[in-house]
């Protein structure tokens, strides 16, 4: 149908409503490679400004590493730009299988299958492996891509209160009449930065005959003593039935994801997962870069060690400054502001001070839980964090929020209707 005026007007009203509600998201244009310092054009059309970046998933600082870039170049030269094919037709190169085997070894599983993204891995896994005779029991704060993947599956859905092992056990007992039970969790929760109680989840799964699904996108490469992820951190290496993770964060930052785990589950994905069957093969340049990333992080833990130091230091700085942060150990450190408009204003003011961070608000986080989600990188040096905290303090003083408790913050910035 033609995009007639009535339809156009309808969508314009909808978009206007998003703006009016204070929920509109603007993009900023970055004129440099991803790093601890970047050059940003914001608003569009303004001059480019150098900023400290404190909101990337570039946990190991490898997104623009010269060795990764060199390996990607070599991959382009030897294996070309794109496969122009899905995997099972003519889209599988030897390097795809090499990367899958390397990931299997790194994660300590039986087999691995690459997907165009972890979003696709999560989207495809459940439908490929579970049926209406089964049940998926998910932590209520799992990533949106898992929610979408579960909705595509005919298995029963259930949820348990976030990280509440008692509630999980109730659900496992309730669903003993199902063929298969699968407990579904993130390893590190992307909005709050807390780590799943994976050891207890595995214990309960073993007790009640259930499988465990883990999305470790915000953990692979740097959580755990050697960066093997949440399973290593919680002492349950080799006990997770399926792990999905991304190559788009610590493991290079480009794109790509995978399903890794029990051989049979991975084979079911190879045979039936729709994003695998119907989406283009991961480009050779990405595969080549990811192989180099695995080389780099398998030789030494110095990057994940530096990230750990940066995380502890930054958390201390924020607390000393009187900012309300979510407690935890991961390099995801939310600075809680609760009010969506405050989060947007705060982010804009931080940008004026040369610190790039973004306000998170509904629907990305629940209403009334807006925040600035800061994320550390091994690419950050101490001076970056010292400079960034001065910006946070200045902006915090401007908005009068330093030292306020959650209750005081909420009371001070109770949401007003936006004209």
């Amino acid at each position, binding site marked *: 149908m033609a995009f007639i005026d009535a339809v156009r007007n309808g969508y314009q009203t909808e978009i206007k409503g998003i703006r009016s509600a204070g929920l509109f998201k603007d993009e900023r244009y970055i004129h440099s490679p991803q790093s601890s310092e970047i050059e940003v054009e914001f608003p569009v059309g303004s001059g480019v400004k150098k900023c400290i970046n404190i909101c990337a998933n570039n946990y190991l600082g490898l997104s623009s590493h010269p060795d990764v870039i060199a390996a990607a170049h070599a991959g382009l030269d030897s294996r070309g730009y794109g496969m122009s094919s899905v995997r099972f037709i003519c889209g599988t190169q030897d390097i795809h299988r090499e990367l899958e085997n390397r990931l299997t070894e790194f994660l300590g599983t039986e087999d691995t299958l690459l997907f165009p993204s972890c979003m696709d891995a999560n989207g495809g896994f459940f439908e490929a492996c579970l049926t209406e005779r089964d049940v998926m029991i998910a932590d209520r704060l799992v990533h949106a891509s898992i929610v979408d993947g579960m909705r595509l599956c005919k298995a029963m*859905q*259930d*949820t348990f*209160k976030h990280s509440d092992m008692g509630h999980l056990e109730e659900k496992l007992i309730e669903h003993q009449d199902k063929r298969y039970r699968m407990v579904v969790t993130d390893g590190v929760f992307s909005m709050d930065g807390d780590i799943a109680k994976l050891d207890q989840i595995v214990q309960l799964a073993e007790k009640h005959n259930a499988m465990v699904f883990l999305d470790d996108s915000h953990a692979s490469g740097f959580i755990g003593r050697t960066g093997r992820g949440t399973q290593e951190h919680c002492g349950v290496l080799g006990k997770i039935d399926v792990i999905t993770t991304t190559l788009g964060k610590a493991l290079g930052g480009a794109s790509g994801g995978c399903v890794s785990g029990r051989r049979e589950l991975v084979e079911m994905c190879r045979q039936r997962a729709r994003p695998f069957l119907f989406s283009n093969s991961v480009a050779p340049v990405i595969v080549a870069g990811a192989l180099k990333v695995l080389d780099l992080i398998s030789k030494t833990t110095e990057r994940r060690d530096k990230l750990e130091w940066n995380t502890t230091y930054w958390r201390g700085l924020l607390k000393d400054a009187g900012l309300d942060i979510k407690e935890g150990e991961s390099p995801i450190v939310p600075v809680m502001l609760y009010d969506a408009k405050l989060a947007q204003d705060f982010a804009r003011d931080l940008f004026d001070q040369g610190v790039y961070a973004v306000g998170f608000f509904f629907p990305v986080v*629940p*209403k009334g839980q807006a925040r600035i989600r800061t994320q550390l990188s091994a690419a950050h040096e101490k001076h970056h964090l010292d400079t960034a905290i001065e910006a946070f303090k200045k902006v915090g003083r401007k908005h009068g929020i330093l030292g306020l408790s959650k209750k005081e913050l909420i009371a001070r910035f109770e949401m007003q209707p936006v004209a």
Partner: protein
Amino acid sequence: MDEISKMVRDYIVREYLEEGDEREVTETTRLISGGIVDSFSMVSLLRFLEKKYSIHIPDDAATPDAFDTVQSITALVRRFQKAEVGSV
């Protein structure tokens, strides 16, 4: 509060409120639009109602609006209880 409303309210408090959450759930408290229940976790409430009251709630009736208050949920249960009786 009648028996069904009380049962529904008690289930919601038990199933959805985290420990330490002091929010009061009344008959008219906004559950979904108020962020207590989200559309992802709504399925367990639906299943509870169907099992407890031996009814079937079709997908087109199990909307966020219908599940947004204890009052609207109670009305939904009564509607499908009548439908079950009518079909016997």
